[in-house]
Every structure is written in structure tokens, then in C-alpha cells.
């Protein structure tokens, strides 16, 4: 058990109990127990190889797309087992969207990028309205409204990433997972995305993986610190959750020495 595994307040969106992720015979992430609550930004931080992205990808069944990956333990989404055989992974990914490290717009127009998801999902919406709303929520509408038919790849990196957020929003998800969404962006574009996250959390639950500790400190309500330690069973390093608490607590007075050492830059 680690310090503070349960987030206070708000409905539980993800309830994880001793979740482990295996790549073949190797257990990459070991027995993580934590809650993600509605309307909060939860950050996963930790050094490379600590399993934070592995856990994030387990939250919308991205690992299904990789052969040999196995998720163990209990991972409930609103009380329902996310990995139950009857659960459709495609539906899961519509409810739980993902924004990746590098902006990855389709080589199509700005409009088509956003309209693609609702079209494929056959959402009962007016596409023009849906595109406008998603771009507005992603704080991009004013910059692109006069050139919706232009290629998305002509946008700046920061704009492309906001477009990817608009694309995720367009299918009306409840959760947005962000895997180092600013690592390819300059500082100003990074701060724009961070501000956008603050706007979005009123309507979406956000989980973000970041290498940038200061980013976790700035944007998140809850922070989970992971590290890699030698797994006695496999004689290899596996990711473990060290501490999960309010972000302010993690960055001013963490309960665990390893967290303190990491956030103050003495380790990792």
C-alpha cells in the first residue's frame, strides 16, 4: 500500500485496485491502487520506465492493440470492469479519448480532422456545429474559422496539438487521457495547452502523463508519483506507485522520501 491511494471528493471515474501490466512474461507495472475522480486533472509523474504511460494506456484499452500485453487486477470505469469480455474496446475509446505526445493530425483539412470521429461513430449531431463546438472548446476556433478547409499539417505544433484535443472532444468523451501532450511544443504553446486543460476540466476528467514535474505541479489537482524498482520475481525493474495525493501536498510536503527526492530533483 502506498501513501494516499484514494483521491478525495468527486465521483470515482476509474477505480484501480492492484492493477499490473505485463509485456509477455515481464511485469512492467506492479499492483497499482488509486482512484481517478470526476472533474479533476490527475497527473502521473516519474522517471523513464516507471510505468506511467503503461498505466495511462491501460485506461482506454490501448494495450489491446499490442500483442502479448496483459492487464491484471481490478480496473473499474464507473464501477464497471473495463476489461470484461463483453466490453467493446472501440466504445471504451470513444468515452475515454487520448491525446498523444506528438500532434498527429490526419493529412486532411482542419474541418475533416475534427469531423472524422463523429462521422465514424455516427453521432447524431450536425457536423458543422460539432466541429465549431469542438474547436471552440479547444481554444482554436478563432484562429482557424476562416480556413477550415486548409490542411491541418500547415498549423503550428501548438495549434496541431489543440486540433488533436478538438478531435478527441468531438466524439463527446467523458475522459481525456494525455500522454506528454506538450513534450513537442515550445514553452508558450505548452502554457496555452495547460490553460486549456484548466478550461476543459469543468467538463472532462483529465489524466495526464508528463515528464515535466513543473507541468504536473501547475495543472493537476492530484498527482501520482511512480518509480521503477527491481522486481524480485523477474530480476528486472518494474514500475510501482510510490505516492498519490493532492498535488499541493506532493510538491510542498510529500509523505514518501522517494517522492521528495524526485520532486526536488535529487533523484530520477
Amino acid at each position, binding site marked *: 500500500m502506498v501513501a494516499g491511494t484514494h483521491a478525495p471528493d468527486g465521483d470515482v471515474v476509474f477505480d484501480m485496485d492492484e492493477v499490473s501490466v505485463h509485456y509477455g512474461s515481464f511485469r512492467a507495472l506492479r499492483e497499482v491502487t488509486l482512484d481517478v475522480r470526476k472533474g479533476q486533472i490527475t497527473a502521473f509523474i516519474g522517471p523513464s520506465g516507471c510505468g506511467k504511460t503503461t498505466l495511462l494506456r491501460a485506461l482506454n484499452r490501448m494495450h489491446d492493440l499490442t500483442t502479448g500485453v496483459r492487464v491484471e487486477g481490478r480496473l473499474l470505469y464507473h464501477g464497471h470492469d473495463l476489461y470484461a469480455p463483453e466490453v467493446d474496446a472501440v466504445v471504451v475509446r470513444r468515452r475515454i479519448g487520448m491525446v498523444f505526445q506528438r500532434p498527429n493530425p490526419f493529412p486532411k483539412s482542419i474541418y475533416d480532422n475534427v469531423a472524422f470521429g463523429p462521422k465514424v461513430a455516427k453521432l447524431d449531431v450536425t457536423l458543422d456545429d460539432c466541429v465549431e463546438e469542438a474547436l471552440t472548446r479547444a481554444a482554436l476556433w*478563432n484562429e482557424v474559422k476562416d480556413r477550415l478547409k486548409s490542411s491541418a499539417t500547415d498549423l503550428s505544433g501548438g495549434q496541431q496539438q489543440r486540433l488533436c484535443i478538438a478531435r478527441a472532444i468531438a466524439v463527446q468523451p467523458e475522459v481525456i487521457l494525455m500522454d506528454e501532450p506538450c513534450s513537442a511544443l515550445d514553452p508558450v504553446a505548452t502554457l*496555452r495547452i495547460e490553460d486549456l486543460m484548466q*478550461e476543459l476540466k469543468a467538463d472532462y476528467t483529465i489524466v495526464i502523463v508528463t515528464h515535466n514535474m513543473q507541468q504536473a*505541479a*501547475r495543472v493537476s489537482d492530484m498527482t501520482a508519483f511512480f518509480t521503477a524498482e527491481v522486481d524480485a520475481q523477474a530480476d528486472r525493474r518494474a514500475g510501482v506507485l510510490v505516492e498519490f495525493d493532492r498535488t499541493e501536498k506532493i*510538491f510542498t510536503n510529500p509523505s514518501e522520501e522517494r517522492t521528495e527526492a524526485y520532486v526536488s530533483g535529487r533523484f530520477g
Partner: protein
Amino acid sequence: MMPVRAHFQEDLEMLRVDVGALGAMAEHAVAGSLRALLGDDRSAAHAVIGGDDRIDALFVALEERAYGLVARQAPVAADLRVLMSSLRVMADFEKTGDRAVAVAKSALTTWPRESDTVAILGRMGDLALELLRAARKAWVDQDIEVACDLRQRDDVLDGAYRHLVAHLLAQEGPYAPSLVLHAHTAGRNLERVADHAVIVGERVGYMLTGDPGALAAEVR
């Protein structure tokens, strides 16, 4: 699109405004302690003493908020100066509240209220309160002119304090020890109220200009 880091700017501004509110509470306490001291208003004295817990509680809450912002936002440049200055100024306002309590306690004690001494203390009290008001205004309005003026105005109060000391040293007779002890304590606390106000002014100067000379001036 909101300005970049709009939420942080909002938090910073809220902190600055709330430090101003702490200053208003300190000002209220000093005014109450003067009513107690000069008008023999015992209920005002009790109100100042009892009210200090609220000043302390707000100070602790603001300090905690400021630490949280430092830890989470890693402020630099003007933002760093605002945050560090907030920490300094809130401490000065909190200590001002403590000085008001000390004056209120002096007011509750029985000692001979010799009229000239009371007149000098009254003059000092007016000056101290004026300086504190100006310091709070400089902080709230970010008014560098008002801030810069504070040190000069403090010289007037220092003059009044020296006058008080000279006057007390000249006292004789059986009532003199009690008068000197209590009047000097009250006067010394009023003089310190003004010193805190001057420090707030210097800190406003540093916050607005980044001039390290303002930091040096604080400790002179």
C-alpha cells in the same frame, strides 16, 4: 482564448488583494488600540486583543497559499517578486496586529495618564496610523509614489518618538516609574507600527521595480 497562464495570474492577484485585506485588519486593530489608549475605551482594547486570532488565522492561510503557488508555479521575474513580496508584506501586517495588541494591553493597565505624555502618544498614534494607511494603499494600488514617500514621513514619527523619550526621561516623582514604563512601551510599539509600514513601502518599491536597493533599504 484567455491570456497564457490566466489562472495563475488570477491566483496571484487574489493573493495580493487578500494581503491587502490583512493590512486592513491590522489597520483596524491599530485604530482600535489608539481608541483604547487615548480614549480609555476598554471594550476597544478587548476587541483588539480578541480580534488578533483572526489576523493570525488569515496570515497562516495566506502563507500556505503563497507556498503552494511557489511550489506549483515556479514563478520567475515579476511574478516571483509579487509572491516573495506578498510573503514579506503579510508578515509585516501580521506583526502590526501584534503591536496593536501590545498597545491595547498597555491601555488596559493602570498607570498615570500625564496629559503631555498622552498628547505626544496621540500625535504618534495619528502618524503611525497614517503611515499604515498609506502603506496599505501603496500595496493595494501598487502606487510607487506613495510607497517612496513613506520613509520620509516616518522621520516625522521618529522625531515624535525621540520627543516622547526625552519627555519621559524628565519625569520625576513617585508616579514617574509607572508612567515611563507604560508610556514608553506604548510609544515604542507605535513606532514599530510605522517601521512595518515603511518596510511595506520599500517592498512595494522592490516589487514594482526589481531594484535591489529597495531590499537594502528594508533593513536599514
